[in-house]
């Protein structure tokens, strides 16, 4: 009997392409409703493999942040900027950067932020 191969939903390329269009994609577990943007074939919570493609809300709150003065090469012209971990509303956590936030005084844990579509690399957030 032919078994269906496990499928990463979405593939990282799809996550990246969706982000360029201003959409955060990931998976929701059909078994326990666990949500993730990270590529998975098995749910880390319940062990199920029924992971369905999902789109998540663009708004969330800052879980932690840093202000990068020395960034990776691609982001060199943008420094300093904030890099954030965001708890998406009714969604998983994800990461991104905030070109408009330049100093630690300008951001706090718990701040509301929104993912925005830009021409810039990576996932860009701004204050909501």
């Amino acid at each position: 009997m032919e078994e269906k191969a496990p499928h990463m939903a979405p593939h990282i390329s799809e996550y990246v392409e969706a982000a360029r269009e201003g959409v955060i994609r990931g998976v929701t577990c059909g078994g326990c409703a666990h949500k993730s943007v990270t590529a998975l074939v098995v749910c880390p919570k319940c062990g199920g493999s029924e992971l369905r493609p999902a789109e998540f809300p663009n708004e969330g709150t800052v879980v932690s942040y840093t202000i990068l003065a020395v960034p990776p090469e691609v982001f060199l012209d943008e420094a300093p900027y904030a890099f954030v971990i965001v708890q998406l509303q009714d969604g998983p956590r994800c990461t991104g950067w905030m070109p408009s936030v330049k100093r630690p005084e300008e951001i706090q844990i718990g701040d509301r932020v929104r993912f925005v579509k830009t021409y810039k690399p990576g996932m860009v957030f701004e204050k909501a």
Partner: protein
Amino acid sequence: MRSPVRKVCVVGAAQNRFGPMRETAREAAAEVALAAIREAGVTPKDIQALYVGNCFGFSESQAHIGPLVSTALGIPDRPTLTIESACATGSVTFREAYVGIAGGFYDVALAVGTEKVSHLDVLTATSYFAMGSDHAYEGRNGVSFPGLYALMATAYFHKYGATQEQLAAIAVKNHRNAAKNPKAHFQKEITVEDVMKSRSVAWPLKLYDCCPFSDGAAAAVLMSEERARALAGERAYVLGSGRGGMTAALHDREDLTRMESARIAAEQAYGMAGLQASDVDFAEVHDCFTIAEVIATEELGFFPAGEGAHQAAEGVTALDGELPVNPSGGLKAKGHPVGATGLGQIVEVWDQLRGRAGARQVRDAEVALTHNVGATGGSAAVHLFSL
């Protein structure tokens, strides 16, 4: 976890001086390997298997350096395993050699780690180091490697009220220890003021909160207890060996102030050794950034969660404190040649346990612990040693 089939000893260990080196990673590996083999009182021909740790070989246009090291040692017919586990490479390499002997496959094995990055400019090195993260979701979104630990520091400050000055005290302590270590990358003392005045790299971490990009190589010769007893030389027993893992991406962790992989590895190592945290006389821990040492000392059970920063600032972990941490100077000041770092920790333990650590000798050092993590904790290894 099943118990190991038999006991394993370290019978020789050596490293070069960490910091910029002229030779390639493969040459440095062969040199320190030969030094460790000689110290063990054996010859390369006695080595039955080689475990070779290296992360950024591709920057030297070289992968698969295992056979190059065995060839340089005159034993090209021996099996080699080339290992990459980000910053935990050295200790993971040691662990695989340990497993080979504990499991009865070999009686004598070499673990060697090596790295060369000084030929890279800082930006390129920064980009390469970020590859140890879950790059698709972290590095690609604009974070550097210091930035990931900065996210942990921000969360830690928020949860426990620790300060940048407390972290600075850890950098000062590790530089003070490294100033007594002729093999350290940095051998210069610094002050809290120096740290606080150093430029921001990834707020709240400053330049002096960060380990350097180092070159270096370190090696250990491991033997079955039976073979080691037949030798005239000294030996240190591997009392416990633990490995843990966790999600690489920080956004997949519920609590950014914890490092579960290290806790799992420590529990295994303590369990195997029949020891607990209070039995440890000193520890070499993974302080790629000052905040990493704080979290390490908590996950290893030395301090309760939230206590690590102020205990360090109060001198508990100083060379003359209750529990010396990083007497070598740690990654922070002894240096962090990624593939060699974990084995460098074992070289320090080997010297300390035998009373050969000179001006940085820990008093009554009988039980030693090493703790080494890959990237932000996706890999972790903890080992316990005594003579």
